[in-house]
């Protein structure tokens, strides 16, 4: 096995980068969490950057194991709707609707 050397500090994320990513992911982070994530993510990205050791020019990206082909379904309606069961596990509902704080448009 080839050893993977985890070089530290090659990919430096700061708290601002973290805040941007956290917002995209809708994760609320405290100040100390941001600092911690900045360090951890930097280390993970350093690990990840070791991919660069491999030349991949012209290689076809592989999104799935090759044998996996997309199967289609026929245009048939299945009787599997049950609003009561669907809404039973929802945090907040009213009159058959899911309820969330008002979304300003």
């Amino acid at each position, binding site marked *: 096995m080839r050893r993977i050397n985890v070089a530290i500090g090659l990919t430096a994320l700061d708290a601002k980068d973290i805040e941007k990513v956290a917002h995209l992911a809708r994760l609320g982070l405290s100040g100390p969490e941001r600092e911690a994530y900045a360090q951890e993510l930097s280390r993970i990205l350093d690990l990840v950057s070791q991919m660069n050791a491999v030349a991949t020019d012209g290689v076809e990206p592989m*999104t799935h194991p090759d044998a996996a082909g*997309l199967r289609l379904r026929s245009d*048939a309606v299945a009787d599997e709707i049950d609003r009561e069961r669907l809404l039973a596990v929802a945090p907040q509902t009213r009159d058959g*609707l899911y309820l969330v704080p008002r979304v300003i448009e």
Partner: protein
Amino acid sequence: MEWETVIGLEVHAQLKTRSKIFSASPTAYGAAPNTQANVVDAAFPGVLPVLNGEVVRMAARFGLAIGATVHTRSVFARKNYFYPDLPKGYQISQYEHPIVERGRLVITTPAGEKTIGITRAHLEEDAGKSLHEDMDGFTGIDLNRAGTPLLEIVSEPDMRSATEAVAYLKTLHTLVRYLDICDGNMQEGSFRCDANVSVRPFGQARFGTRAELKNINSFRFVERAIDYEVRRQIALLSAGGQVRQETRLYDSARDETRSMRSKEEANDYRYFPDPDLPALVLTEAFLAEVKDAMPELPDAKRRRLGAEYGLSAYDAGVLTASRELAQYYEDAVAAAGVDPKLVANWVTGELAARLNEDGLDITNSRVMAPALAGLLRRIADGTVSGKAAKDVFEAMWAGEGDADAVIAARGLRQISDDFAIEEVVRQVIAANPKQLAQYRSGEEKVFTFFVGQTMKASRGKANPAKVNEILKRLLAP
């Protein structure tokens, strides 16, 4: 300065399937909230999308109809963003590799024909609906629409006026209905349009900054929204200002566009190939099958109707505005066995007017093609006059029975009997010696007076052709 308008349109056509694009839920419109959504639509943990084969067929049919490349390999991607009516936190849509690319549509405007490029058409799912009215400070989420199949059709920025934009939309609207892939119902949102509008000084090659107009749900509003936006941009630029690239909402009540609250936080949708859906691969055999099943397209039908029935370009155009109307016309022609132009006159005239008045579609016309054909036969064989036929049609429309029944019940049968008409004509001539003298002294326009009098005396039932013929004979000195 002279300004040129540049318009590109993005149309979302809801595909006419029974079930949703990735689930087996029904797609019916107007059901009670959340009664058309299952665990897949509501994105429960562990559920997976399975692509509806019919949407693929429909997209391929569209692609072939616009002369586009239908890719044998296309890819579904995830567009990631958070919104409460987007259950998975991403929308499945084709992004880098759409199923259809590089097609075109020929539109006709008063200025003539023009080809509009279609950049691409791709498959995607619709989101649910957020309801804000009467919710006491909450937003209600209805997922009935979530997962409804859409074909997003993106045009090139090839249109140069609102008129062209509307012509393009109408042509496209006709086409998708011909292809039977979309019901075209704009009120229900089955055919929605966003417009990218910009202006530039004439002669400038570079496009101006564009605004994207959303929420335009009728042909009329498309024209108005674009016109407003063009005026706004020209005024802005003329005053030394700049157009901002932004999304604007068209408000039909106030007939203006306005900037959507600039959440100009740059959206980063993080598109990537959906790992639940390997690439969609189509075989040549499948495409050949779609091609074979292709219905006659509007253009071809228009040309054929013109040639086959000797119709004017205008009539052929009107009659092929929808597949159903063309079908009605051809059914009526076949059933009547009369001059196809007479049929065309009636379908585009009386019938169209009546449908319009009652707000009906050709498919729910109160006088169906065989019934109209029955009436037209009676016109052709002289049983009723053209004028009386209009009354017969009205009665038929009101449900008083078929043409023969109405003619009999109302005594509208035309008098074609020479002797009877001659009798009336003699009486009319006798009653009008002064006009007779005028006619015989060469004032030939008095002839129409005698026609009118004769028709009046016969209460409209006299066969006008016979009246003419007999009058000419008896008035002659």
